[in-house]
């Protein structure tokens, strides 16, 4: 059996809240992700989704448990893991090209090489021609594309995305989901996507991991209803909607993370809103 791309075993993490009282975010969470797999993580607010992602990315240390990426224990941020945050987090004083080249610059890659690579990455995310644009000149969606290109700059084996499209409207988000898959097909990465959207999860992932309310642990895993490649039209497929309904049932009345009439009543209602 091949080494899993990500292995999380018995991870626990507690935070001190405003009143110095410990709030347990994760309680003995265990999860394995295979190489090149796309896994979506969904759960109610406070279920520790983002905490889990930060622990895998080495930005947070777990209180207990072990985390491995490519068979090596995670002891801090690593260049084999790319992180896409909820906000694009672009450096406003740099143009798109220099933002994408930033990780390469930190890694000491010579200028000519990193710029050529950044150009390739901008092309990959559909932004060739915007190399000289400042973040302020780009739309929210374009900024997030730049941030995805930046996360891929060091050719990570694992790409972690923390609700990357949550700031976009629902229609744009679905297009970006498909585009993310297109980028994924051309790279060699394992993808873990934290999301609030059940439809996003079932559209993108090979497997959706459902977390329990706080303290978070794995409640259930729902396998993909569809093969690859995925298309926007798949959102209307009954298998996909059935998987979505299954996840919604697991989340229960408490776990309505993203009230969206389409998700509750099916996709027909949208035009009447």
């Amino acid at each position, binding site marked *: 059996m091949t080494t899993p791309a990500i292995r999380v075993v018995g991870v626990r993490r507690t935070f001190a809240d405003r009143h110095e009282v410990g709030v347990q975010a994760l309680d003995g969470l265990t999860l394995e992700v295979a190489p090149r797999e796309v896994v979506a993580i969904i759960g109610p607010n406070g279920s520790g989704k983002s905490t889990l992602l930060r622990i895998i*990315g*080495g*930005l947070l240390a777990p209180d207990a448990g072990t985390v491995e990426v490519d068979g090596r224990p995670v002891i*801090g*941020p*690593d*260049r084999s893991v790319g*992180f896409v*945050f909820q*906000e694009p*987090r672009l*450096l*406003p*004083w740099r143009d798109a090209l220099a933002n994408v080249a*930033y*990780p390469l*610059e*930190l*890694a000491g890659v010579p200028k000519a090489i990193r710029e050529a690579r950044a150009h390739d990455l901008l092309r990959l995310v559909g932004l060739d021609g915007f190399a000289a644009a*400042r973040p*302020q000149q780009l739309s929210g969606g374009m900024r997030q594309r730049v941030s995805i290109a930046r996360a891929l700059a*060091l050719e990570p084996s694992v790409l972690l995305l923390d609700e990357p499209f949550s700031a976009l409207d629902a229609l744009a988000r679905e297009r970006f989901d498909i585009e993310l898959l297109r980028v994924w097909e051309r790279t060699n990465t394992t993808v873990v996507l934290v999301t609030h959207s059940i439809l996003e999860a079932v559209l993108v992932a090979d497997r959706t991991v459902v977390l329990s309310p706080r303290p978070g642990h794995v409640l259930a895993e729902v396998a993909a209803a569809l093969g690859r490649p995925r298309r926007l039209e798949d959102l209307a497929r009954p298998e996909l909607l059935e998987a979505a309904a299954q996840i919604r049932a697991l989340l229960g009345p408490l776990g309505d993370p993203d009230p969206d009439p389409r998700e509750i009543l099916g996709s027909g209602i949208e035009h009447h809103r």
Partner: protein
Amino acid sequence: MTTARHARPARWHTALPVLVGAVGFLGLWQAVDVVGNYPPYILPEPAVVASRFVRAWADGTMAPHAVATMREIILGFLVGAAAALAVGYLLARSRLANLVLSPYLVAAQSTPILALAPLLSLWFGSGLLSKVVICALIVFFPVAVSTLVGLRSVDSRLLELGHSLRATRRQLFTTLEIPAALPSVMGGIRVGVTLAVVGAIIGEWAGGDEGLGVLINLARGSLFDIPLMFATLLTVALIGMALYGLTILVERRLVGDRS
């Protein structure tokens, strides 16, 4: 190409109001003089000041004093700004330093430099050194505070990004903290540069035998040449404006257009 085409009307749009403002100011000055019928030793007319200004520069009265004052301003500004950048960084970095040092900073800033100048002149002599110290002191506070505020304003989410990319402490400083702090620091430097001009004049009043502050005193006192005094004030103002313009140019170059 397009930018050049757009730049020309834009330049007119900025130049015209400035010109109108200047003409209005001189016209008002002239009008006050005519209406009040003030003698030249109270309020000389603009034309009188202008001709005295030209003559003072032509006959070599003004130049040596202007050069002396410029020297004090530039040295004092550089010393004060450099110290302020270092201390501002220290204050931003260390809670302890902030706790221990900030009361003295505020106290020093609240004490009028005018009141300290004679003392500093006594300690450091009536030469260049005391003026540089006074300029440096007056420049220090705004630059230190703006550095502190600028470094504190760095977006913590960008720092987390830097950490996720394994940036070293030094890389975080050069690629995130400096660029993020720059607009604020440049704002402090703009204020500091104009205050440096004030500092030099105050320093010269507290004791000294050359500089524009000395010339103002001479013109008002033993020479009793009020148009020369106005011409000297004009020189001081022009120096301040030139230095301010220079910092704006530097700022545009360093900060660029971020909005």
